């Protein structure tokens, strides 16, 4: 198979980017999208040109590294998969394919198709954890968790943080990401004690990073490789409303609520 690729090239965060057209020849239908790009890069290297930079790691849909907007859709035309799980048989021979990076203010382009997604890490640092005292491991089955709760938490926890939700959203909002993380922990007993503080901290961090707000178009859900549903966004909103009501009734918190151990 042969393809005409229109790829976004940008040599550094400060440079102006542009599209460059490349030909991909001798592509087998069984190749993944990233393997096809590997082939293009091999040819570029042989001819002494700079290869196209793109993020990738596990190549089996778990790590959340690969991040390409293919013909206007993050992770390409198939649903419920990452870019590395997309195969070239999905495209017709001779097709022209446009490849762009995630575009959001919070995801500055580092080079070509590689964006800096550390904004998501900073949201996690703001509240995507539980505070546990160190010591011996807790005995098994001390905390009994119902099947439904466990399943819901697992559905939310399957978020791999790839950022496709941000890329697909017309407002570049990270609501689905934050929703998955907040819902995951708020559903489980381990996450309950900090739930009000967590949702506020993570949403504040989301605003701080320059993500937009949710327009309830549900484009995020359609491109999520882990099929995380927008029901979790409703859950996030619910958590936020609950936190506002609960917190306004609590006494003022000390500077750091966890620094008071004597």
């Amino acid at each position: 198979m042969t393809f005409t690729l229109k790829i976004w090239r940008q040599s550094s965060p400060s440079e102006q980017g542009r599209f460059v057209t490349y030909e991909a020849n001798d592509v087998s239908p069984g190749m993944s999208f990233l393997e096809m790009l590997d082939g293009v890069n091999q040819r570029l290297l042989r001819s002494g040109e700079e290869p196209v930079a793109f993020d990738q790691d596990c190549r089996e849909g778990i790590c959340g590294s690969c991040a390409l907007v293919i013909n206007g859709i993050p992770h390409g035309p198939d649903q419920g998969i990452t870019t590395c799980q997309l195969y070239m048989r999905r495209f017709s021979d001779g097709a022209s394919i446009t490849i762009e990076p995630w575009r959001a203010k919070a995801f500055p382009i580092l080079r070509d198709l590689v964006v800096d997604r550390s904004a998501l890490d900073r949201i996690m640092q703001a509240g995507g954890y539980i505070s546990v005292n160190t010591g011996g491991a807790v005995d098994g089955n001390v905390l009994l968790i119902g099947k439904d709760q466990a399943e819901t938490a697992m559905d939310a926890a399957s978020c791999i943080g790839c950022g496709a939700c941000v890329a697909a959203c017309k407002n570049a909002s990270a609501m689905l990401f934050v929703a998955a993380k907040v819902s995951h922990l708020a559903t489980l007993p381990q996450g309950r004690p900090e739930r009000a503080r967590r949702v506020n901290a993570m949403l504040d961090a989301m605003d701080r990073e320059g993500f937009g707000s949710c327009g309830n178009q549900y484009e995020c859900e359609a491109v999520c490789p882990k099929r995380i549903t927008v029901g979790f966004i409703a859950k996030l909103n619910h958590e936020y409303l609950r936190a506002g009501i609960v917190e306004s009734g609590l006494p003022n918190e000390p500077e750091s609520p966890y620094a008071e151990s004597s």
Partner: protein
Amino acid sequence: MVRLFAHFQASVGKKMIMALTGLGLAGFVMAHMLGNLQLFEGPHALNSYAAFLRDMPIVLWAVRIGLLSIAVFHIGLALQLGMRNRRARPVEYTVHRYRQASIASRTMAISGMALLVFVGFHLLHLTAGVIDPGFNDRLDAEGHRDVYSKVVHAFQNPFVVLLYLAGQLGLGLHLNHAIASSIQTMGFEHAGLNRLLKALGPVIGLIVVLGNVAIILAVFLGIVR
């Protein structure tokens, strides 16, 4: 209380205020449509309904000022969030394809602005009577202001009818996305009720638009005269 207000400074909090004010306006639009359907009961019913509303000026003006402030909050927050959302993606995609976003959800800003213009015209036209003041002071047989004749006169003009129908199109589009979206924003979600909740927008939107269009077309086609 101060902390409760501070809490809603985040973008999600602003969206919640937008959702609540929007639902308030949607409630008014429903009541407005139902009240106006009394046109079909004849001049007596509509004129005494209008007189009934005007007989309690304090309530009437409280509602009017309430609606105005709700609308100001709704529009103000829409602008604020809209500008924030624009800033969130400084460079647009060269190729962009939607996967499941409805037409209504993509045109919220346009339908909202169209509605604002339409409501402005409507207030000047039928409420304040600045546009086409011919029937403003006419009284009916019982000494009430003759709202009925004013409405019938208004919708015999094809340009007015076109404008109002366009306004209804904007209203229908806006409500179509708005109601289910507000419910989602207020954090209400239920696995069993989701389909019902999603249908609320289109159903309520359709009911309101059909009720209003019935009034406009009934007059225009000479069914009500």
